[in-house]
């Protein structure tokens, strides 16, 4: 037996960079027949034989094949996996449009409070007064921040918030007897926007951007007719610029009884500075996992509350928590679109977000956004000579730069820059988005990175650019990353030769 075939579970740590950096075997390879972790409680109930209670036609004949590992093996395996994973707690994460800010630890303590962690969602209203109070309080904070009148917290993520908002839009038009067929979306929008529009039963119509990276208002006016149900906008938009003509856009849409939908992906730029409600928006979704610092969990859980103006409150999903005279209660709004979640949404995320808001308070929330914008402009300026910004204006919390010069000079692409940055200890920015910028690098440093971190990040980016510009380093950039737990991964092979479970392996 060669050495690579021995899966010595507990003690061999060669998969972590600290100890060699080879691949980590799967938990299934570490499994040894007959082994197990801890014991279950003896609950004092006599054990019955399943076959004596349930018809044999329904019973499985063999136990489900789950891994058989000791607790020591289990802890070693998953701990080693964490050594192969980057995270905000390890370093900067300047992913544009993702708002990867530091997640304060005080929220972890809050999430573990017994009343937060262990309350059953179907307990009667008398047993969930704290939860209803928590949601109503969080709603009050969010409404002041967004300038809206009522909010639901049921959507589990931004994309579900979008669809919920669009269904509210649809319910409004039906209620009014409006014949609407389409929703306008800028060409710089996130992919979830057009996908959500299709799922709402409307047709997505693309609005072009102008040379300044903003919605082309003349083109927009040409697209607006009586069949327009509304428009979905991110403001600041995905190139990090504020839509200065938002009042004109709002008027054009409202003229045909259309509604303005605000995608809150970029809310982190403007908290305490400007409010979507004051800009004319009717429906606003926010991402608690971006602006309000709840952790992303490697891709979720998120939380995508949807806030609306007064005249749309009757369409909100139910059940809806309200502050009553004798206590908190749950109601069904008059013309509710119905339920959008099994229960109330990603509730523990609400508790974390409220803890964050309480900690910062009104002043702290305002400072948060100002510092996010300061950091973005500072970094943009530091690297502008090598990575020209796609648009010249003062950016908001993020900016889009282009690597097109490097591509022309040395064939080094945005992807190579991203991978080379990993070798220098930083997560990569978002690349190739928005689609309207060639070789786009979308960079969002967030407010929680220090000036020193920004200086170091800029130095790394400039070093990469200099290597490309000199031509000598181009090859090594194509070969990056080399110091990471895996070198460049063959994505095409994964799709061509589909193996998505251990059991599908040859």
């Amino acid at each position, binding site marked *: 037996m060669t050495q690579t075939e021995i899966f010595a579970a507990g003690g061999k740590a060669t998969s972590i960079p600290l100890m060699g950096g080879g691949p980590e075997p799967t938990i299934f390879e570490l499994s040894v027949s007959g082994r197990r972790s801890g014991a279950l409680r003896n609950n004092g109930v006599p054990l019955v034989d399943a076959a004596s209670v*349930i018809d044999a036609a329904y019973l499985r004949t063999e136990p*489900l094949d789950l891994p058989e590992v000791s607790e020591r093996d289990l802890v070693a395996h998953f701990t080693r996996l964490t050594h192969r994973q980057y995270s905000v707690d390890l370093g900067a994460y300047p992913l544009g449009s993702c708002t*990867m800010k530091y997640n304060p630890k005080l929220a972890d303590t809050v999430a573990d409070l017994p009343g937060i962690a262990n309350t059953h969602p179907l307990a009667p209203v008398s047993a969930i007064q704290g939860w209803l109070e928590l949601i109503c309080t969080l709603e009050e904070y969010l409404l002041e921040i967004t300038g809206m009148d009522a909010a639901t917290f049921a959507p589990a993520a931004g994309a579900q918030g979008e669809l919920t908002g669009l269904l509210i839009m649809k319910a409004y038009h039906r209620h009014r007897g409006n014949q609407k067929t389409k929703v306008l979306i800028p060409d710089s929008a996130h992919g979830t926007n057009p996908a959500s529009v299709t799922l709402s039963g409307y047709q997505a119509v693309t609005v072009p951007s102008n040379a300044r990276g903003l919605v082309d208002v003349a083109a927009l006016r040409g697209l607006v007719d009586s069949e327009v149900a509304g428009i979905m906008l991110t403001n600041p938009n995905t190139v990090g610029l504020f839509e200065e003509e938002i009042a004109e856009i709002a008027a054009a849409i409202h003229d045909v009884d259309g509604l303005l939908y605000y995608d809150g992906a970029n809310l982190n730029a403007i908290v305490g500075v400007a409010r979507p409600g004051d800009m004319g928006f009717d429906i606003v979704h926010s991402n608690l996992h971006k602006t309000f610092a709840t952790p992303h969990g*490697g891709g979720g859980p998120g939380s995508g509350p949807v806030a609306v103006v007064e005249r749309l409150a009757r369409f909100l999903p139910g059940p809806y928590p309200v502050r009553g005279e004798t206590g908190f209660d749950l109601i069904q709004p008059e013309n509710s679109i119905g339920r959008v979640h099994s229960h109330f949404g990603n*509730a523990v995320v609400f508790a974390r977000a409220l803890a964050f808001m309480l*900690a910062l308070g009104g002043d702290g929330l305002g400072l948060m956004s100002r510092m996010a914008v300061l950091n973005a402009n500072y970094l943009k300026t530091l690297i502008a000579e090598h990575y020209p910004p796609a648009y010249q204006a003062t950016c908001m919390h993020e900016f889009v730069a282009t690597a097109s010069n490097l591509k022309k000079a040395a064939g080094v692409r945005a992807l190579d820059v991203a991978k080379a940055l990993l070798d220098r200890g930083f997560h990569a920015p978002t690349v190739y988005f928005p689609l309207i910028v060639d070789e786009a690098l979308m960079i969002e440093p967030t407010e929680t990175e220090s000036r020193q971190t920004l200086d170091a990040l800029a130095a790394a980016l400039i070093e990469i650019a200099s290597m490309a510009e000199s031509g000598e380093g181009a090859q090594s950039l194509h070969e990056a990353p080399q110091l990471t737990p895996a070198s460049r991964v063959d994505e095409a092979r994964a799709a061509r030769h589909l193996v998505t479970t251990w059991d599908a392996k040859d």
Partner: protein
Amino acid sequence: MSSFVPHTEEEISSMLSFLGLQSLDDLYTSIPEALRLGRPLALPAGLSEVEVIEKMDTIASRNRPSSREMICFAGGGAYDHDLYSAPRALGGRSEFVTAYTPYQPEVAQGVLQALFEYQTMVSRLSGLPISNASLYDGASALVEAVNLAVAKTKRSRVVLSEAVNPHWRETVSTFAMGPGHDVEVAPVDASGNTVWPDDAQGVACYVVAYPNYLGLIEDIAAVKRRAVEAGALLVVAYDPVAMSLLKSPGELGADVAVAEGQSLGIPLSFGGPYLGLFSTTMELVRLLPGRLVGETVDTRGNTAYVTTLRAREQDIRREKASSNVCTNQTLMAVWAAIHLSWLGRQGFAELGRRCLSGRFYLSSLMEQRGIGEVRLGSGSVREFPVSLQRPASEVIEEMLGRGFLAGVALEGRRSIGAFEGSLLVAVTEKRTKAEMDRYVDELAEVLK
């Protein structure tokens, strides 16, 4: 005020002067004056960490969580199972908790490999070869299953059993309003079995729960035959814990299997974050919603993992995508993989047997003591309905004062056919004989 902004005053002014600006407000000149708030937010001043925790604790203490003083017999899609220290410690590691979606696989092998292992375990639970990297919850998984069936069959009639979780049915109806699916509910008879419509014209899918919301096992083979005859898909909403004892949905012919994964190591959490499990056949893989992790190699030839079949997803297909899912519930999927690995082959089988034994003990005791009418249909693993002489909601309210969350009331939006007003009772491995004995004594008192 707490602040997580690291900058000193001096740094702020030097950064501003580097940008040629006088003040932080100069950063916002692109926002027209009329649209600026022009005042501080009307919110309370910030607090220190300890004050925040005390304030949140005060609010949280107004709940009645499950504990040894509030013993939980409620289920209805959320179950009070035992949780263990090792999965909890591993699941709380900040590399898992504070990572983003694995867009850069070279530095995300930890999350990607954990998801690959999760997908394997979900495929074994469901008996179907393709499982995604999670959806928001059971309800959203069912919504996506229905959308997949409509896309596959190009039909719009969706037939749901009344004994599918009523909250999920409501969620399906909400999202059906967008594309305009025609959602129809097939009623449940007094034995807890679905009565399917005779007319099979234009059915995209039949949705059956296994065991159903009442906790009862239905005849899946019968609805499979209907689906085959109608050229419709069979969607099975299963209880993952029951799969410790029962044949998998895949073995019974499901084309899509969905589940709520909360029972796999996720605290009750007032209903979220939970975990939507989604599995299907290889034939339907290109219609799969959400993220999918695949195995591949890196340039050194080492095994590596990456999100794959990305061309299905919204960021590439945009308005042509069949799902808009972006963020999912990755952290809960990782928790489930760790929890199931801790239980392991033997522990999971034992868990199922202990749930069943507890359920058998309690339902038998209630029958012996003449507590209402216990209904076990064609079989139950860990949950069953009992009709009492009084509405369940009144009994639940009185039992709260005696230290029990007695169950879920099948009333109002949760009423199901002939079971309206019944109490739905769940027994997990966490419920001891002593707790069940006391529960039945207290119920007898309340019903006296």
